[in-house]
């Protein structure tokens, strides 16, 4: 439930969300080129469909996002990719709302960026054979933690009680672990077969 729905946030916060998303899109979009279009589109498709993988937990419904995966494959371009995926999720699945599109894209996009920066830490261990796998797991897990943290922070900022924030974290723990394992597995598989698909390789 990374998407905040219509009517939950104030107009001011919605405006801030759009401003921050716009600024980040411009900053991260500089890396984008036609050569990357195929890869970005397919990763966006994966992020777009990931929200269909969900399950009920603690009285709410949680779903996967694979933002960490987007981060390790696209690097800074993952923000733009997530923005497009969130827009399509709103249009076709009615996830989130139009006024919350900015804040949702910002929360999820920044999580993808977090995944990218965590995955970059593997370069600190150039001789470690399992660095890609371990930092892939950490990137997926860390990105999910960042995403839930951004969501919980937003909810807390607009006046939701701490108990709600705690439930959001508790409910997403299986998602965080699942995203970590899936991202690590894919990173390891790509490192063996198509290493150039990992960003910065």
């Amino acid at each position, binding site marked *: *439930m990374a998407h905040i729905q219509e009517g939950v946030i104030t107009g001011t916060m919605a405006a801030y969300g759009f401003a921050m998303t716009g600024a980040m899109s411009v900053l991260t979009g500089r890396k984008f080129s036609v050569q990357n279009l195929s890869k970005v589109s397919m990763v966006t498709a994966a992020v777009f469909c990931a929200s269909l993988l*969900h399950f009920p937990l603690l009285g709410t419904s949680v779903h996967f996002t694979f933002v960490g995966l987007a981060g390790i494959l696209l690097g800074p371009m993952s923000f733009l990719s997530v923005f497009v995926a969130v827009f399509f999720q709103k249009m076709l699945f009615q996830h989130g709302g139009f006024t919350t599109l900015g804040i949702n894209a910002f929360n999820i996009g920044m999580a993808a960026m977090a995944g990218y920066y965590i995955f970059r830490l593997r370069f600190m261990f150039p001789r470690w054979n399992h660095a890609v796998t371990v930092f892939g797991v950490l990137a997926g897990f860390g990105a999910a933690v960042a995403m839930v943290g951004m969501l919980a922070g937003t909810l807390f900022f607009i006046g939701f009680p701490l108990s709600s924030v705690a439930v959001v974290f508790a409910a997403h723990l299986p998602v965080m672990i699942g995203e970590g394992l899936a991202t690590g597995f894919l990173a390891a598989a790509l490192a063996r077969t198509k290493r150039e698909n990992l960003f910065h390789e």
Partner: protein
Amino acid sequence: MSKQTCFLLLVSLLVLLPGTHVHAHRLILTLENNSFTVRYDDGTAANRAVIRILDEGERVLWEGSVSEGGTLELPVKNFAKVIADDGLGHRATYTPGQKTGIQLPRPLAAALGLSVFIFIASLGRFFTEKKRCAQKG
């Protein structure tokens, strides 16, 4: 289509296939036989939800929680709007007489979205190859 595109397409399909059976989450509020039902769109009862019944001036007429099954017997006869909120960022609104918009079935919506992304990916591939050929030639 390159190996890279094939691989990413496969990942997308793997994500999509189970999704067609489970559907995605969204809070839905319905009124049937004088009883409100609040659930996520996978059918899970939203038992955390709080319902607020408002009059035309947006004043709260009644506020309370739903049952474990996500249901609530209609406590007020005349109202203008009902809001269900699960306290975690999910919210649904019910307005008497207002029709809900037409929504595509989930698998169709997912297929439509995927088609758009695959089309864009193909365009990207086409222009990249064209540029590569021009550079060689």
